[in-house]
């Protein structure tokens, strides 16, 4: 009787091949996720803020919705975290922006929310804020307030994914080692 178990892959071999393919895809997605974190640079936020904050002449509904979202987010961020711009209030002075096209530099060197506010929500001293007198405007940038929480969460997710892959590696290695020794 001829034993024709020559080159047909057994079930265990098929299983290991499929697991290897799955592992390869998991590895690709883990690397992609880690790479995406690199794209969130200060320049990206700066460009978005300058091009969308307080944009009045929007082209379509999508543009309007994005501009409103960015404006609302930045207003709340600057108010609550006591910060201004991405690197500092000088961002508003160094670059032209949609905000600058609708607000004159003489009255608004930077948005009102960059000024130190009193309990009623109006600037403590408007002239002091416009001139940049220390204590009457927020002189630090908002990038730390944005990137801090984002980095901690992204760090946790990325390293957890990596740990799972290491664990899977050892399990697969053990499976191959074990099955290569027993009869089937």
């Amino acid at each position: 009787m001829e034993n024709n178990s020559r080159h047909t892959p057994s079930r265990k071999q098929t299983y290991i091949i499929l697991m290897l393919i799955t592992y390869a895809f998991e590895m690709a997605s883990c690397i992609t996720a880690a790479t995406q974190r690199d794209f969130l640079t200060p320049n990206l936020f700066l460009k978005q803020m300058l091009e969308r904050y307080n944009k009045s002449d929007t082209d379509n509904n999508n543009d309007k919705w994005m501009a409103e979202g960015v404006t609302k987010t930045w207003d709340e961020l600057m108010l609550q975290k006591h910060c201004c711009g991405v690197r500092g209030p000088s961002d508003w002075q160094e670059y032209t922006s949609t905000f600058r096209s609708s607000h004159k530099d003489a009255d608004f060197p930077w948005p009102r929310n960059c000024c130190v506010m009193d309990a009623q929500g109006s600037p403590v001293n408007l002239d002091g804020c416009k001139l940049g007198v220390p204590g009457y405007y927020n002189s630090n940038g908002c990038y730390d307030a944005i990137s801090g929480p984002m980095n901690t969460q992204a760090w946790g997710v990325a390293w957890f994914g990596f740990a799972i892959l290491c664990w899977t590696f050892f399990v697969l290695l053990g499976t191959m080692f074990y099955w290569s020794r027993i009869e089937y």
Partner: protein
Amino acid sequence: MSSSWVVLAFCCLGQLCAGNSLKPQIAAPQLATNNPTLTTVALEKPFCMFDSSLHPNKSYVIYLYAMKETASAISSLVTDNSGKPLDSTFHQTSGGQLGPYKAALFDVPNCASPPKLADVGDVNKVSDVLKQYLFRVGDDGTCLYDPNFLAVCNPPLAPDTTYRFKYVLLDSTEGIMKAQTLWSDPIKTRRVKIPLKIDTWPGRRSGDMIVITSILSVLVFLLLAGFLASVGSKDSSAETRCMSQTIQQSEPRPQLSSE
């Protein structure tokens, strides 16, 4: 910090003897950090600059003239032939391009008791201190287009342009210029960049991304090697088992056929 301001005040008093070699100065950078901006310049008021020309019983007023630096080739005179200061406006001189224009008019600042700049920390005093200490050229954005505006108009300046300023002491009853400072050093307003030029490419990859990629690649390679090794050993062990089974099966056969 307050002692340095006191020293500065004394220096101002000491320059009484310096005569007419004084120029308008830009406001202290520790106080006005956003200066000059795109369209405004904050200047220190002329403390103790005209004290040698003041008589006790007369009333004086100070005019501030501004002009673009390029205008000095055309005309930099602030008085006409009879000694009266010019009444030129921003609009008449095209924003200071054709000659100096009158940007402001205020009282002679008090040399004996200058404002204490340390008081800026006090919320109640800061308005007064700022008003007494400095003047912001370019502060008023609406007066140029308001037909009812009758006072001296101080419209915003042009960005990325060099300006020069001069203070003139005027006797308010006679209307004649009594003293003037030199033209200030050239002061340039800010220049802007367009946001399209901001480079959002992240550049170098971060360190942990490189670590993750290299470690995972090594693990995949090891898995593949392990898989190939296990497949290779399975094939060889399967073949030997097959051979031994066929030999065992072929042996009892001849017994059956012989019977």
